[in-house]
């Protein structure tokens, strides 16, 4: 399964739904998408990984890179994730302390 990306605006937030595998092969496409959004002035990002089947440290690196980028514009990057197998890798890498991780897009948006 390859990577698929779908972005939509929800008020001042941009919600990116990611499906498939975020790995060493596909992570560059996610990075491009994030860079494009930030370049267009979208700095409040919510990344929904509920339909992601695999996430590796390259993918996490891209998420951290996105976070850095939006923060330099006083923006935010939250994650929507309830899957145990993905939460596990956020935990192992200590990234649960870095990202806001929410059960739903609405919870992420209303946290601000």
């Amino acid at each position: 399964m390859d990577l698929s990306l779908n972005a939509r605006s929800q008020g001042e937030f941009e919600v990116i739904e990611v499906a498939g595998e975020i790995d060493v092969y596909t992570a560059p496409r996610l990075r491009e998408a994030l860079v494009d959004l930030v370049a267009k002035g979208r700095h409040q990002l919510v990344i929904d990984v509920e339909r992601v089947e695999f996430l590796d440290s390259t993918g996490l690196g891209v998420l951290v890179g996105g976070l850095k980028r939006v923060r330099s514009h006083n923006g935010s990057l939250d994650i929507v994730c309830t899957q145990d197998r993905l939460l596990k890798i956020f935990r192992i890498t200590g990234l649960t302390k870095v990202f806001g991780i929410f059960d739903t897009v609405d919870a992420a948006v209303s946290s601000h």
Partner: protein
Amino acid sequence: MRPVRLSIAADPANVRVARLVAVALARSRGYAEPVVDDVRLAVGEACGRAVLTHLDGGVDAPVVVELAGDDEGLAISVTDADPADGDTPVITLQGDSGDPADLAAEGIYLVDAVAVVGGVADHLDVRQGPDGTTLAMRWAPVESLPD
């Protein structure tokens, strides 16, 4: 199951082939899905790291993955052919790496792949030799194997 060896050219697209083989082996050995997920992640991380190491170093040789399951569990090793020299970052296992967000210069080694492998394998052995580095991972046998 007797051993399988997979040699992959250093291409990010090939890492998923290695994950696939590892998952097939883990399932065939009767591991439960959460362990299969760990195997998938560990092999993905180890191979991703090795492939990027080869690409960074212009190493033409393949990355070698060896997989075997027996009564002592599941053993998978991933070997790169990047000679250890002064430039090779010393790999620190797990450990307190501080705030990952501070590290983020968006480099590929931003999140330590080896730490992830160490986090999901039952046992990890890192051997750095003059010809390359081997990550040797093990998982304990499942309590009761299916016939």
